[in-house]
């Protein structure tokens, strides 16, 4: 038995000397390569999903895109000194005031015209102060804003009910109510009204998309909204308020410990990958720089060498 064993080992040693097994390492096998490829693909897909979601989440579902020209213009027009409060038009008021002055001159032939003119001018100043939009209440300003928005979205002069007009009116109300909410954190009644308004606007815009898609895309582009903000499920809750910093950096929702630690882990992971990417980029840039320098050096050397040949 012993001899047998000895002979077998000797045979093995002989074999190993004569035949060499080529062995591929586990990490470079076909299966492992495939697995690795799949992992990379999955990683890329997850990254893309996150990017798409981030892009969609950037737009505020309540206020829309920041710097929407339409909203900015209406807000500026409301506090413009040329506009009047109580819904008066400047042309009408001017006509009336001039007519009054003329009537007064005609009625009192005995009075000196200059004095009448002076008193009338003073009266005009008083009227101007009363009708100045800066001295009016916020509700009058809001009404003016709504009127301007309605006129711009109307399908025909006097249109006050088409879907896009309704959406525009709601948008103006939403903007004014949001400003109110920021100042009055505890006005829950108005916060509720705002919440309902936002969802009502979504509903009417969704109807418009079915009814007249061309007009729908025009309206949302003008109001600074996106298709996603209209069609998404949205509730104006504390999570939204915290995300879009309605009350500054206040923490409105306390997460449980497990959720918090999960978030922290995700954040550190993101940071790590970002740092890695930056490092890779820096390394690449450095390599490029080195190459550039080398090319320059060679170009500097070449004329010398050419001189030498000459």
């Amino acid at each position, binding site marked *: 038995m012993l001899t047998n064993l000895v002979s077998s080992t000797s045979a093995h040693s002989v074999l190993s000397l004569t035949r060499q097994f080529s062995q591929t390492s586990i990490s470079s096998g076909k299966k492992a390569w495939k697995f690795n490829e799949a992992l990379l693909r999955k990683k890329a897909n997850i990254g893309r999903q996150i990017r798409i979601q981030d892009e969609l989440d950037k737009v505020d579902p309540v206020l829309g895109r920041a710097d929407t020209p339409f909203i900015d213009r209406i807000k500026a027009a409301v506090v413009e000194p040329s506009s009047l409060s109580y819904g008066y038009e400047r042309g009408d008021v001017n006509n009336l005031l001039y007519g009054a002055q003329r009537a007064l001159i005609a009625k009192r032939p005995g009075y000196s015209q200059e004095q009448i003119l002076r008193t009338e001018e003073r009266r005009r100043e008083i009227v101007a102060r009363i009708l100045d939009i800066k001295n009016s209440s916020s509700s009058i300003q809001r009404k003016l804003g709504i009127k301007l928005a309605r006129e711009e979205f109307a399908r025909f002069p006097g249109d006050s009910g088409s879907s896009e007009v309704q959406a525009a009116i709601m948008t103006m109300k939403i903007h004014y109510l949001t400003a109110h909410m920021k100042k009055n954190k505890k006005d829950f009644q108005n916060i509720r009204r705002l919440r309902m308004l936002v969802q009502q606007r979504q509903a009417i815009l969704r109807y418009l998309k079915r009814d007249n*898609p061309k007009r729908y895309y025009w309206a949302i582009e003008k109001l600074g909204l996106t298709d996603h903000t209209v069609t998404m499920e949205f509730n104006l809750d504390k999570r939204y308020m915290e995300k879009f910093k309605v009350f500054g950096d206040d923490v409105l929702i306390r997460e449980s410990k497990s959720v918090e630690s999960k978030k922290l882990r995700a954040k550190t992971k993101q940071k790590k990958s970002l740092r890695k990417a930056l490092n890779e980029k820096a390394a690449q840039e450095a390599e490029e720089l080195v190459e550039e320098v080398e090319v320059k050096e060679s170009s500097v050397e070449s004329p010398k060498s050419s001189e030498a040949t000459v």
Partner: protein
Amino acid sequence: MPRQNFVGIVVSQGKMQKTIKVRVQQGEFNKLINKRLLGRKDYLVHDEGEICREGDMVRIEATRPLSRHKSFAVADILKNKGQQYAQFQRDAKTIVAQEEAAKTREFLEKRGEYNSNVVNKSGMINDMLFLDKVSSNPEASAEDLQKQSDLMKKYNLSSWPTTKMFDLDVQVLRAQIQKVQEQVEQHDENNSKVSDKVSEILGDEGKLTAIFEKLGRGNPDKLKANVRKNLVRKYVINELGL
């Protein structure tokens, strides 16, 4: 055996590579409640060219399994509504940008005009006062007269002192009212003419069948009374050319 075939609406696109989500709605008759119940199912579908857009109506066909959750591919785009939407969205961007640029320019011009009026103390009332002064002064300078004619042009006035701006032009208003009145009368007359003719046709069986044959509607008795009347009414309006 034919391949499995469904028609559905694209509900999600652009989130996965070469893959869309298609919602298929199918009904099944439930014996227990004696009623057809609708059910929906979402399929992940292969879209090689990535041409489908959200809202398209597509026909999908079974293939060999393409991945763990995907064993269908787009066969036809039946209605390219989603692609239309995408086109509208692209157009809206340029249209709104142009519109906004024009409106902002208008706004700034209006503001500039108002500010210059404030600085120069011009404005409408001052212009009118100036016109008063010049018209009452027989020895006005050429410069003033030139300014006067400019202002008259600006406010679209033919003479000074004017009644046009402050009084109603009663003659013109009367003419307008007269015109509207005539339109209303004409409308009433047309209406009565049409309703007379319609009732006459509905009373006469022969005429009615003749008209329905002409319209290609078959037997008039098979339709509801209101539908029959509506069709005849449309026919009469068309015939009279109103």
